[in-house]
């Protein structure tokens, strides 16, 4: 009898106070499993313990190498909040690397999106060929992957997708402890959705178990990032507690977890910062190019919960330390009218003396017809020619535009990318029930290796905190960053859908009255008519007609 494969579950919560008074909480739940879903020749995986069965079956049925799906409500404000641990664009985003043995990637992709729409209660079935692209360079595998052929990669976003409790409910059910124990008890929808930013994601990839990569394991990470607003949830004070954020406190760690920790970022304002209950455990981590200090609370130890058997964190800070992100971008539509327009993407490099390249990926729907001959890239009011351009033009109702460019950003500069477009007229059945709301264009993705002030550690350690080990670090001098711009909301020329009825009624009335009058004028002759004779005379005429005698006058 085979021994069941080893699996392991870790959970972690990182709390980072932001300079504007908001607070950023990031949950990560990781399940590692020493098994192979894609092995050929051996028995299919049938015994699931910590890894959710619904996702495991999806992986083996569709031969998925890597799967990343995120649902986000709100937009991450990089200038005010810094860089997130795991970035995500507004709406839903799904990108998948299929195994190189798959013969029909498009068919697998279509079925996969339908199955995921059932699992997460989202309208992912709207992902089809008209909004799927195959980026050539922007989305390299984050786990083990020797597949560099981008024909096995599919990427799609649904910027209109709403996130609400119905997406959180199945997401929570994928966790080994559900929402009954551990950090997931804090996830109450009434508080989580009353926030400035809410993002839940699932990332599945194969990783190496050790330095030499002798054994592979599958990693499932479920992440939830939320930013609570200073004024609406915080009542205007820079004073937060777990109870104020989540309306719950922690009572126990998940019994199935091998590690359950809460990290609080105390790097800023060490003397103006108040944290209770105090803890002697400190940890330093280099994350996002910066060395940060964290207070660590280990929930697997009973003394963390104290006398009341409940753990509530209290933070108070007074300082106003602004951290300036090195890479930042924004996007907007310029122009007027409903015929043409211009998309402007502005990328800021805030590094004082280093230049670095960024890869900009734009996926524009087919109904905004881009004129690529008007594409200009300017930095410091001079032309900046990209060193690599991959462009795939759109085909009406078949596929969207895909534009990927490698742009070198000069130090301390602003780079502007502009392209003109024309709005297409859709067929009347292609409009949504509320077309005057507008049509969404998905966020642009900017991926870059940003030079780091502090040396990143390339050591592989199993007990690294989860938030610093999401993206594999290849070299010490830079760290990987992905920035998403705003989605665009564009109005297309919309017909007035009630007009056909009005037009028919008015036209028919005008035609009937006009034609009727005209016909009468042309064909009717007018003659003088005798007044009708009185009754006696009519009766007499009637009798005369019978008799055959000529009638009276």
């Amino acid at each position, binding site marked *: 009898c085979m021994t069941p494969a080893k699996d392991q579950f870790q959970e972690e919560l990182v709390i980072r106070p932001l300079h504007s008074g908001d607070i950023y909480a990031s949950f990560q739940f990781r399940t590692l499993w020493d098994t192979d879903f894609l092995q050929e020749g051996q028995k299919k995986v049938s015994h699931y313990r910590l890894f959710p069965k619904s996702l495991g079956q999806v992986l083996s049925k569709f031969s998925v190498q890597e799967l990343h799906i995120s649902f986000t*409500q709100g937009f991450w404000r990089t200038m005010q909040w810094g860089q997130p641990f795991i970035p995500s664009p507004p709406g839903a985003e799904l990108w998948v690397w299929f195994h190189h043995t798959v013969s029909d990637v498009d068919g697998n992709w*279509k*079925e996969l999106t*339908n*199955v995921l*729409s*059932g*699992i997460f*209660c*989202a*309208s992912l*079935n*709207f992902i089809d060929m008209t909004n799927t692209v195959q980026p050539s360079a922007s989305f390299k595998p984050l786990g083990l992957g020797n597949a560099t052929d981008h024909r096995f990669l599919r990427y799609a976003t649904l910027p*209109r997708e*709403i*996130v*609400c*409790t*119905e997406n959180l*409910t*199945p997401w929570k059910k994928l966790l080994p402890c559900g929402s009954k124990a551990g950090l997931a008890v804090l996830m*109450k*929808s*009434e508080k*989580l*959705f*009353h926030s400035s930013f809410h993002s839940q994601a699932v990332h599945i990839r194969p990783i190496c178990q050790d330095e030499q990569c002798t054994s592979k394991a599958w990693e499932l990470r479920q992440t939830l990032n939320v930013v609570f607003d200073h004024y609406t949830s915080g009542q205007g004070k820079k004073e937060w507690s777990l109870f104020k954020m989540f309306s719950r406190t922690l009572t126990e760690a998940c019994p199935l977890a091998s590690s359950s920790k809460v990290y609080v970022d105390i790097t800023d304002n060490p003397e103006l910062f108040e944290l209770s209950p105090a803890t002697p455990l400190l940890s330093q981590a280099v994350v996002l190019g910066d060395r940060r200090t964290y207070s660590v609370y280990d929930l697997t130890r009973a003394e963390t919960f104290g006398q009341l058997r409940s753990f509530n964190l209290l933070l108070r800070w007074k300082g106003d330390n602004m951290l300036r992100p090195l890479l930042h971008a924004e996007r907007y539509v310029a122009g007027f009218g409903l015929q043409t327009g211009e998309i402007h993407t502005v990328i800021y490099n805030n590094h004082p003396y280093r230049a670095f390249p960024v890869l900009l990926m734009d996926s524009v729907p087919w109904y905004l017809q881009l004129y690529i001959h008007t594409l200009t890239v300017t930095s410091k009011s001079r032309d900046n020619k990209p060193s690599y351009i991959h462009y795939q033009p759109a085909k009406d109702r078949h596929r969207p535009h895909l534009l990927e460019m490698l742009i070198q950003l000069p130090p301390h500069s602003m780079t502007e990318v502009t392209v003109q477009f024309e709005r297409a007229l859709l067929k009347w059945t292609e409009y*949504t*029930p*509320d077309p005057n709301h507008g049509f969404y264009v998905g966020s642009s993705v900017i991926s870059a290796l940003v030079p780091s002030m502090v040396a990143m550690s390339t050591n592989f350690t199993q007990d690294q905190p989860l938030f610093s080990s999401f993206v594999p670090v290849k070299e010490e001098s830079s760290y990987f960053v992905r920035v998403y711009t705003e989605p665009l909301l564009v109005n297309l020329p919309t017909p007035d*859908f009630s007009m056909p009825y009005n037009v028919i*009624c008015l036209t028919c*009335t005008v035609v*009937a*009255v006009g034609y*009727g*009058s005209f016909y*009468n004028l042309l064909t009717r002759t007018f003659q003088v008519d005798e007044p009708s004779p009185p009754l006696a005379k009519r009766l007499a005429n009637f009798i005369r007609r019978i008799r055959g005698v000529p009638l009276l006058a």
Partner: protein
Amino acid sequence: MYSLSLHFFYPWIYLKKRIFTFCTIETGQFFSSGHTNNWAVLVCTSRFWFNYRHVANTLSVYRSVKRLGIPDSHIVLMLADDMACNYRNPKPATVFSHKNMELNVYGDDVEVDYRGYEVTVENFLRVLTGRLPPSTPRSKRLLSDDRSNILIYLTGHGGNGFLKFQDSEEISNMELADAFEQMWQKRRYNELLFIIDTCQGASMYERFYSPNLMALASSQVGEDSLSHQPDLAIGVHLMDKYTFYLLEFLEEVHPASQANMNDLFKVCPQSQCVSTPGHRTDLFQRNPGSVLITDFFGSVRKVEITKDTINLTSSVKPPIQSIAEHHVLQFVADVSSQNPKQKDWHPPDGFILGLWTLILLVFFQTYGIKHLKHIF
């Protein structure tokens, strides 16, 4: 001699037969309601923030149905717009049914199967008839069989003979009746309860012609269904009157309750609802007084503990059962062969009359009144 012995044995045979029929009658009563599983299809067809009450209507029926035992896997919930996480909602992730935010019908454990633009007439009819594309996940399918009792609840804006979906398309009462007939032909339901809360809702069930259908509507033809009460903090009307009182009625029902359909027909009389709720039971075989509320709204498993052995493999059909079966088959044949009745001719209504009056007035103003005699 022979006849004497027969007379001697006759009482024994008679007694044995009586015991025999007694046991089989017990099995008959054991499965008397006829259904083994319950499904619910709850649809809200309205979009936009000011139609908050339609989403609240659907969610309150969802909440009652879940509370009485139907699991999420047996509920197909279709909401045409998102009210809970709408940016205009002052309390996100909540949908209230009572003012002063007393009852949050959205809750913490909700699974919406069709949402937003997916709620279309085509998808609704595909769910009912089962003609879905092969890659549709299980949670979006109505996997009912011939022993399923299905509850169908529709709410939104409607008119005489149609229901509006998302302000862009409509479903007519004939299409709905045909869909139910397709379900009957494929034996996709045992009994079906249809509830509709829209203006002129009774027009939606007047075309039904399949057996085992019971229908309720919140208003008669020519009447409007009214909304109940606004909440000043949220700024919109929270519920419709009929569903509000239906929710109050269902809150009293628990899984072991013996409330029956006659109580449901009395929900929201005209004094409370202003409109007159209607119902239709002529296509339904059982007497509504013997149909429990939990037959449709709950998922009650019949469990009877017994120490006797009950013979289920007997080939002799007790006479009572076979007569009942015969009646059932006859009734079904009668109902199925009925043609849908012809639509009565109605005199043209106000708009057409007004248009014709306008045309005639213009004509006669131009030419004078003496030409009237050419017409009459």
